[in-house]
């Protein structure tokens, strides 16, 4: 064998060895359920483990950040997906619209979840609530705030917020359109843009970090991050950021309610384990799971009467905005176009 032949032999062996690993999807036994989620599974892993303990059903997960609908659609009737989970109402309704879900009816789900947090037909169910709140430098004395006030010139150069195109923000802007109309919302967005202390980018926790870093005084972000930050180990960076701020729940002038988005789930249209999928959904609204949502993730439970984490409880009672979720989702594209139009992210 010449020198040049040896690498070829090695190549062939490597190919054969890896070939075995490459092809063939996973096999799915009866006692399994497959979860496609745009929500990072680590956060709900305790819930999934608990579900597995109780039922013996194994949960497979794939964290698909973007393109969940596209992927499931392309997989078609051979898709192994059973449950589809998202962290934004718009994304959830997209799944329904794209026809990758199927309606399911369940007494358990209907009695646990209020009617405005699920579809009549059972196409989708909300599992937890996420209120979008004001982070305030703890030296600032603010107790009441409206979303409209964010555009007040007195906050010039003092406001931090993530990208206007992030679903959390487009949902908020969409709600503003539903309340005040597109024209007023455009003016409002221009006002907020003029008040920004830095580019609209990064994540929600960076609002707290930038407040501590002296870049801004107030900012808009989701409430559960505060629960996470203030419950972080003493001395960690996150704890210092969390301790630098207070939370005020802003309201819309019109409704007097706070903007709320949801995490939710639907059963996949071609779910091979539809029964297990339903079991998983029912488990996720059980008292036990809802309390895990509240205590481990600091999110607001959809089910009434579940105990809150002390940090979240300290924000006071949540008065959610009266708009229905599909109503908000309807204006989402318009909201996103307004963000482009006013150059919010520039």
């Amino acid at each position, binding site marked *: 064998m*010449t*020198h040049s*032949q040896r690498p*070829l032999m090695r*190549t062939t062996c*490597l*190919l054969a060895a*890896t070939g075995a*690993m*490459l*092809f*063939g*999807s*996973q096999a799915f036994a009866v006692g399994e359920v*497959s979860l496609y989620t745009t929500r*990072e599974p*680590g*956060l709900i892993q305790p819930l999934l483990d608990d579900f597995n303990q109780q039922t013996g059903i194994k949960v497979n*997960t*794939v*964290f*698909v*950040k*973007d*393109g969940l*609908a*596209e992927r499931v659609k*392309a*997989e*078609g009737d*051979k*898709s*192994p997906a059973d449950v589809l989970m998202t962290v934004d109402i718009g994304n959830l309704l997209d799944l329904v619209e794209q026809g990758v879900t199927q309606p399911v009816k369940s007494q358990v789900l209907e009695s646990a979840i209020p009617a405005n947090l699920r579809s009549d037909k059972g196409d989708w169910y909300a599992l937890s609530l996420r209120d979008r709140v004001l982070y305030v430098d703890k030296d600032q004395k603010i107790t009441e705030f409206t979303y409209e006030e964010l555009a007040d010139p007195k906050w010039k150069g003092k406001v931090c917020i993530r*990208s206007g195109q*992030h*679903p959390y923000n487009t949902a908020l802007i969409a709600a503003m359109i539903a309340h005040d109309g597109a024209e007023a919302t455009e003016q409002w967005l221009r006002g907020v843009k003029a008040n920004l202390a*830095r*580019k*609209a*980018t*990064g994540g929600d*926790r960076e609002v707290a*970090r*930038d407040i*501590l*870093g*002296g*870049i801004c005084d107030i900012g808009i972000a989701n409430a559960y991050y505060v629960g*996470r930050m203030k419950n972080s*180990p003493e*001395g*960690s960076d*996150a704890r210092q950021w969390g301790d630098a701020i207070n939370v005020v729940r802003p309201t819309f002038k019109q409704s007097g309610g706070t903007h709320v988005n949801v995490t939710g789930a639907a059963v996949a249209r071609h779910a091979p384990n539809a029964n297990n999928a339903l079991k998983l959904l029912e488990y996720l609204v059980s008292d036990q799971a809802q309390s895990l949502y509240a205590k481990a993730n600091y999110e607001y439970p959809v089910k009434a009467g579940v105990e809150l984490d002390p940090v979240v409880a300290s924000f006071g009672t949540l008065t959610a905005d009266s708009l229905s979720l599909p109503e908000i989702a309807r204006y*989402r*594209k318009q909201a*996103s*176009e307004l963000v*482009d*139009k006013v150059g919010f992210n*520039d």
Partner: protein
Amino acid sequence: MSIPASLPALASRPAAPSRHRILNAIWLPLAVLAAATVLAPLLSLAWSALQGSPGLWLHLAEHVLPRALSNTLALLLGVGIIVILLGTGAAWLVTAYDFPGRRILGWALLLPLAVPTYIIAFSYLDILHPLGPVPSALRWLLGIDSPRGLRLPDVRSLGGCILVLGFVLYPYVYLTTRVMFQSQAASLLEAARTLGAGRTEVFWRVALPLARPAIAIGASLALLEALNDIGASEFLGVQTLTVSVYTTWITRSDLPGAAQIALSMLALVLALILVERQGRKRQRYSLTQRPRPLQPLRLRGGRALLALILGWIPVVVGFLAPAAYLVEATAKRLHLVGGVSAQLLASLQNTVVLALTATLVTVLAGLVVAWAVRSARHRRQARLGAACARAASLGYAVPGTVLAIGLLTPLAVVDDVIGHVLSALFDIPPQLWLMGSMSALVLVYLLRFLAITVGGIEAGLARIPVSLDFAARSLGENSAGMLRRIHLPLLRPALAGAALLVFVDAMKELPATLLLRPMNFDTLATWLYAEAARGTYEEGAVAALAIVLAGLLPVVLLARAGQPTSARSSP
């Protein structure tokens, strides 16, 4: 291996005529197949783009494209200037001058290749944040107590993004240009010197013009990376075309719109490729003598110190500072929590297996395409061969997410066909063979990175004199045999270089992996991303450090492969 000795052996070897013909003719069809595979997701995107509504296009044209285009052009211009200055300057410094630590610097300059752009953006945001080490130290020096007392320019800006990308992407230029300085130019450079030109004059009048193709190749790779970067630009708040593709698709669930922007980006890419072709034009010289390194000028005292400092700046900014920061953050994390999860090890294994497989496949495909181009050189199909090579390189310019989305439909079709055949032949129930298994990931990596291997191997082949081909042919060797017995051994450095680049890139790949990976499967990059999504990205420092460390080994190997053999063996 010495070529003359092996040639007589070729003549004595009888070859069956039919096999002979197949082995000669097989290359072009294979290259066409590779090009078609790259084009499939792009065509599927084009189809999506056609479904869009005109109203939407108006919105994009009025409010999105002008800004995104000007941001993107500014970014490319800025990054282009930085990578060319740093890359060429550093390459000349370590080739033409000798100073203490030159050899170490020679490979250290490649280290930023191991750092993905999204990690360096994360790191610099932390390092330069008012709460981070640099502003804190400045405040301490100036005696300012509150972070409010000192506002530095924010790295979350176009300028910040240009600097970050420039300092992490310059090794592409450094790598290609240094090889050129070291191997090809030596005799010409010395001729210039004997004719009385000084070192500076040699650089401007001989070395730089000679290195132009190498600079063009390196810079175009770096710019393509910058163009499809999503991590750093999005994180630093720069609305580039790629970021717009992303938001159009995600926030407006508007795939046609996203596809339209993505396709208009291809125009930019074609322009870049044209510039690169132009840069390479009229530059065909073959290596007819053994490469001889340039005799470097020994620097002493202050000048040596200056060279040392200048040379290390890109390494410190592009690698050492962020790496040191990650080490510190990891140490802090281990101290607070006391361990890393077992999942990290599983992710590491997935990453390495996946990257190795993708590298192997991509190098083979690149070899096929490049060889087809060379074989068809003087025949009627020459244009077809060249077109295949260009088409095969398009995937590198398309953002990973967009490529992955475009790939979904073709994958579904292939899965359907495989499913039908298998269930008809072996009664196996239909399932997703490609989608939802690692092969989809290997495929998308192949499409993304084929440009690297095609380009690298083409450049390597160009340095092998065509007279060798004629000699082998006249002695009766067929195309495959000629490749195996003559070109492959000579191509070894080029192959190694291309393979290592693909490996490093595959390890860092994030967006396409996120979309196409199978269930319960994480790579280091997706693991890091999940940590970041969980809002605990300082914990991601461990994964980030793992990516950087795992990328170090191939980069060091690359540094060794990049040195011509004679440079190492010469006294």
